[in-house]
């Protein structure tokens, strides 16, 4: 756009994107004394349609000292801010190789607890879509709006064990398990499979099933919400499973190995270990110097399988070929009818009650003595305080005893309701064996053979052993 004042040609140019405007002036004649007025400049700008972003100070300078034939930017518009592309916000660590050491309540860190597994539950939100930005519109030097370009939307990753939320904005776990990001997909796996458990994996805490194809290092722990399967023997290892525990090898616990299963336990042998199962315990070969308890049957399956130097208990029945070791007088206790840990807990509570009652009698005696003093003379302030404290202590003992008695009653009811089952020994019961069924017991002082122990009318009976279909169902034969 070109204009002309009295003494100058005034040329205004608007950039192609309309975000800047420039002006160029040129004298009409060579006379250097010609003046350029600001109003002439402004008129030229207005005639060119520039209304926004005008820098009047620049126009003023041009009018003061016009430079011939030079383009000077005097107005700038506002460029539009384009929207950001959408993205995916992950709610778990996408780098699964970083250990996440945690302090316990006392501030200690167990370096075996590396927490490499990221457990998720069904319906847990794994990642959410961050929507694209819409951007912000700009304005040209002509005062026109310049539209912003919105960002491109992102897409949720796919994977196994996951599903999109109903509104399509997030990815949730469709199963319990371990979440992993492989760079393209989010997968939730209900099983955690490792070649070994050692310093590279740390302790395993997983809310699915754990499969270990190799060794589990001494001192390590596996805690699984479902099953634990180990392809080799284990040592000083703690295993806790919400389901079954299957160990292809045996357990050489060195007095520190522990297995706790809410389901069944299947193992080749148990030596110097503690095994507890809410289901059945099936041992292939032997149980030695261990403590084993099960709510279901406890079976040593091998035709020459044995139990020695151990305390084993079942709430239903026990079967093994041999108990104890000949001429070794090794103490072996077989318990059926109740969980010995429950019995022990009940006994401890009962002992607590008696101790508390003895304590009460002492308090009562002190109270009566103080009362006698009070009746005869007068209690000192200190004695008066002591008197009140004793009263409060007695009241506290009463409340505590009520609670303890409630617990005892619950345990007693559970013990009394337990099935008075059987102990089946297909081969030899050696000296040193103690049989406990329900509330009855028997110490074996002479070798017995092929015996079925059970309780009838409150008396522990030992009859000749005859294999039952129930036992046959477990045996390898």
């Amino acid at each position, binding site marked *: 756009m070109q204009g002309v004042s009295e003494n100058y040609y005034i040329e205004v140019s608007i950039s192609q994107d309309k975000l800047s405007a420039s002006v160029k002036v040129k004298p009409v004649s060579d006379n250097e004394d010609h003046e350029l007025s600001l109003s002439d400049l402004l008129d030229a700008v207005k005639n060119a349609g520039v209304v926004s972003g005008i820098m009047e100070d620049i126009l003023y300078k041009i009018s003061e000292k016009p430079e011939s034939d030079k383009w000077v930017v005097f107005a700038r518009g506002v460029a539009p801010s384009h929207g950001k592309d959408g993205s995916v916000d992950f709610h778990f660590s996408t780098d699964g190789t970083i250990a996440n050491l945690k302090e316990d309540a006392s501030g200690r860190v167990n370096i075996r607890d590396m927490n490499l597994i990221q457990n998720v539950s069904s319906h847990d939100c794994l990642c959410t879509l961050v929507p694209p930005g819409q951007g912000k519109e700009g304005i040209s030097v002509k005062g026109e709006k310049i539209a912003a370009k919105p960002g491109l939307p992102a897409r949720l990753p796919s994977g196994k064990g996951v599903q999109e939320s109903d509104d399509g904005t997030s990815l949730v776990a469709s199963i319990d398990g371990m979440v992993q990001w492989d760079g393209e997909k989010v997968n939730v796996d209900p099983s955690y499979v490792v070649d070994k458990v050692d310093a590279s994996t740390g302790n395993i805490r997983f809310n699915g099933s754990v499969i270990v194809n190799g060794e589990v290092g001494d001192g390590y722990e596996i805690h699984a919400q479902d099953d634990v399967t180990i392809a080799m023997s284990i040592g000083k290892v703690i295993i806790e499973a919400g389901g079954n525990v299957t160990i292809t090898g045996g357990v050489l616990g060195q007095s520190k190995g522990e297995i706790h299963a809410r389901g069944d336990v299947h193992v080749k042998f148990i030596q110097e270990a503690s095994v507890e199962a809410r289901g059945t315990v099936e041992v292939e070969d032997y149980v030695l110097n261990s403590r084993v308890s099960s709510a279901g049957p406890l079976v040593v399956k091998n035709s020459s399988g044995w139990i020695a130097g151990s305390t084993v208990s079942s709430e239903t029945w026990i079967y093994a070929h041999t108990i104890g070791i000949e001429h070794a007088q090794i103490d072996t206790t077989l318990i059926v009818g109740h969980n010995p840990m429950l019995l022990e807990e009940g006994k401890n509570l009962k002992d607590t009650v*008696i101790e508390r009652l003895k304590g009460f009698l002492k308090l009562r005696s002190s109270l009566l003595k103080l009362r006698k003093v009070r009746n005869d003379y007068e209690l000192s302030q200190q004695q008066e305080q002591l008197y009140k404290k004793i009263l409060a202590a007695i*009241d506290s003992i009463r409340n505590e005893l009520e609670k303890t008695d409630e617990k005892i009653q619950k345990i007693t009811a559970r013990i009394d309701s337990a099935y008075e089952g059987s102990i089946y020994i297909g081969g030899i019961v050696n000296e040193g064996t103690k049989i406990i069924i329900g509330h009855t017991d028997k110490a074996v002082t002479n070798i017995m053979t092929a015996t079925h122990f059970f309780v009838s009318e409150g*008396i522990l009976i030992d009859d000749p052993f005859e294999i039952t279909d129930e036992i046959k169902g477990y045996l390898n034969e």
Partner: protein
Amino acid sequence: MSRWTPERLYDAVSMGVPVEGKDLSGLNLKGMDLGGANLRGSDLTKANLTGTNLEESHLERVKLAGVFFKDTNLCNADISETTLEDLDLSTCTMTGIKARKTQFIRVSIFLRDLKGSTLSGAIMMHCVFNDVDFSDSQMEQMNIIFCSIKGCRMDRCNLQNTNLSLCRMKDSHFNHCEISGGSLMASTGNNIEITESNIEGMDLTLCRIQGLDITKSTYKKVVQEETRIKDLKK
């Protein structure tokens, strides 16, 4: 001397021979008639006394740990200075039993007649007595502590200076009793009758009772500290 057998014991008792201080542990005395036997100080640990007749027998200071009592006749038997622990005696007959200074720990007795018993100086801890009739019994100087006493009768009993502390009582009767100097310290109760009794000097400290009838009882010097009694009938 060879070990005692059930047959040998039976023969001795039949002949009236005292079997004092002998090892009778683990013997199966099921259904045996040992009425009037003198077994003082013997060891009956883990003996089976199912259906055994021990009426009027002398079992003072006998070791009774793990003894199996079922349908055992203990009428007028003397089990003084013994310890009964973790036992349910609900199938035994025990009228007139003598149990001076006997310790009853976690013993349960349901629906039994213990009328005319002698329990003086006995200790009962953490026991359960349901619908047991102790009427006309000598129960003075006893410590009955933290016991559950429901539907029991202790009419015409001598409970002088007996300590019934921390007990849980319900629907029980102590009528025409001598309970002077007794204590119900920190006990709780519901619907308790102590009528026409001497309760002079009784200690009701920290006692909580809903429904207490002490009609015609001698109500003197009764100690009530932090006692809560609702529906008191005098």
